[in-house]
């Protein structure tokens, strides 16, 4: 921790680390994968109630986006949000803690997997209603515009979400008002159990920017630096007063939609094709090739990350579950009179 970081929340620090180092980005992608694998284990062991939506295979989008933005920007993600939350800076204990209903979690354990947030890194509570976060991000962008700040709002959503009204309304209003917002669609080819082509009239989501005379970009969602570059272009456009952009990241989730989904609907061979272009592997190879990372350092990184997750899990399991008294907190915000 550098001197200047004293008193800065840990999540903000982690965001800076990510922004400053390529190695940190690889590490973060690993962390995300490990945390989500762990979440699935814990569910399998019956240690968690309810449901969860993990994003194994999509880590490059989360990390690329986080690397392209500032902790003072605002981000609206979805129920499939562990990866983004960690990428943006939230710590594994807080994320795991919320998933496991523990007081260490960001909602004190009263929300569960779908409700992550951290104002210190600009993460608004993740949205459990499909599309709902899109207009909210537009509002965060309106806030920047109104105050003539150079902040940017980001909205993340899936391919399936582009069929809901909020997507259309949000993008149009952002375009008309020329707001500093970047819409990032993680096109993982499925909305729940439905393949894109059975629900969506176009296969490139980016096409839909035409309806709003909006800039658009399609990017390889498995390549963290491609994502970072695309989001950076969009963010710079937004900060410079150039208005919104729709970025489509082509990606894939290795796992089912939610915990109970075995994904029988996958096309034959599809999963293997995507596994062959694993975002973590791809980026690791790149860093190995450039000499930024040695093979042994990579091994060590894996071990270390795994160890940290073990530690985080221990910490979480030591944290008490939410209390009955907490149920009555935070229903209304206090208003000083």
């Amino acid at each position: 921790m550098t001197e200047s970081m004293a008193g800065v929340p840990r999540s903000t620090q982690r965001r800076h680390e990510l922004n400053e180092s390529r190695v940190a980005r690889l590490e973060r992608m690993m962390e995300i994968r490990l945390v989500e694998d762990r979440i699935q284990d814990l569910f399998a062991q019956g240690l968690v109630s309810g449901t969860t939506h993990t994003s194994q295979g999509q880590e490059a989008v989360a990390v690329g986006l986080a690397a392209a933005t500032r902790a003072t920007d605002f981000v609206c993600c979805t129920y499939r949000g562990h990866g983004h939350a960690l990428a943006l800076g939230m710590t594994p204990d807080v994320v795991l803690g919320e998933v496991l209903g523990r007081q260490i979690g960001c909602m004190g354990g009263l929300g569960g997997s779908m409700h992550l947030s951290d104002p210190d890194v600009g993460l608004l509570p993740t949205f459990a209603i499909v599309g709902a976060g899109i207009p909210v991000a537009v509002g965060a962008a309106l806030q920047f515009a109104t105050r003539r700040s150079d902040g940017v709002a980001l909205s993340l959503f899936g391919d399936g979400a582009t069929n809901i009204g909020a997507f259309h309304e949000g993008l149009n209003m952002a375009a008309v008002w020329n707001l500093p917002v970047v819409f990032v669609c993680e096109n993982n080819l499925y909305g729940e159990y439905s393949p894109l082509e059975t629900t969506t009239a176009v296969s490139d989501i980016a096409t839909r920017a035409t309806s709003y005379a909006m800039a658009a970009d399609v990017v390889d969602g498995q390549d963290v630096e491609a994502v970072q570059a695309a989001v950076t272009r969009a963010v710079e456009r937004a900060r410079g007063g150039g208005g919104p952009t729709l970025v489509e990241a082509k990606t894939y989730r290795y796992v089912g939609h939610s915990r109970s989904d075995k994904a029988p609907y996958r096309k034959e061979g599809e999963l293997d094709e995507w596994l062959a272009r694993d975002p973590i592997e791809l980026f690791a190879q790149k860093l190995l090739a450039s000499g930024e990372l040695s093979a042994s350092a990579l091994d060590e990184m894996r071990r270390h990350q795994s160890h940290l997750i073990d530690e985080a899990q221990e910490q979480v399991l030591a944290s008490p579950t939410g209390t009955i008294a907490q149920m009555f907190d935070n229903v209304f915000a206090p208003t000083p009179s």
Partner: protein
Amino acid sequence: MRLRMNQAISLAISEEMARDENVIVFGEDVAVAEGPFKTSEGLLTTFGPDRVRDTPISETAFLGAAVGAAMTGLRPVAEIMFIEFVGVAFDQMVTEAALMHYMSGGRYDVPMVMRASVGSGLGFGCQHSQTLERWMLGTPGLKLAVASGARSAYGLTKAAIRDNNPVVILEPRALYGQRENVEPGEESIIALGTAQTPRAGSDVTIVALGQTVNVALEAADTAPWSAEVIDLLSLMPWDRATVIDSVRRTGHLVLVEENQRTGGWGTEIASVVGSACFSDLRAPIHRITAPDVPVPYGPDLEKRFLPSADYVREQVGALLTTKTTPSPWWEEFV
């Protein structure tokens, strides 16, 4: 037949589809995947892709399409996965579907069903665990019913599909996997607007709905007093006669609601019975509800949110003894 509630629903829809080729089904992942809660098992295989369709994530489009298909001759059954999602398409149910018959001077009917899963108990958190009857209760032109298990889900679903009005059926999600005896056939249809009395009694009338019916029955079965338990089943219209008749006999009314206290469905029942049975009531009408907070995550907290059988027994006991309103469990917290 011993059926899980989701099987009973699949069966009811399937029978109605076989009976009337105008019945069609759509919603998110209801066709190929047979429903996120397996409430449309076998339908795609039996009736084919024209009559059983997966929709985009477009609640406004598909509820609106249900309205349009219903007005022009079909009988659509549309599934809203979690009742909260109707929030993005609310207009189509309460302002379009509900008023169409009226707005056409009685010349168009809207025989559609909107089914939705509701309620707490499965750890889905604050935006996926409410019952939300209050959003729809009182809408002129819109019928509203709530299943309390496989048997009533079967009976209400069939009645709803045959009704010529838009009908909302709410299905407590936590009951999908629970089994009950269901006797398929016309006799098991439950007319919308009629309550049932699964338990007769003389000291107190307990009116319950959906998931709280079993809670109320359990409480009654182990209590020293004699409770008549009414499963209200329909909220719009609701069975005034059955409830009022019971309260006239028992002199006491307790409502057991899964929802938060303010504005829950019980306020409607309480206000009507309070008037109609003013001189019969020997104690205040008592509402047993959840507190005015979002549904919490975590099994212990969520369990506490929903009134338990023990809590109902305690509360009713206190009411009958003191003839005054007992305090709710959360009084110490607020």
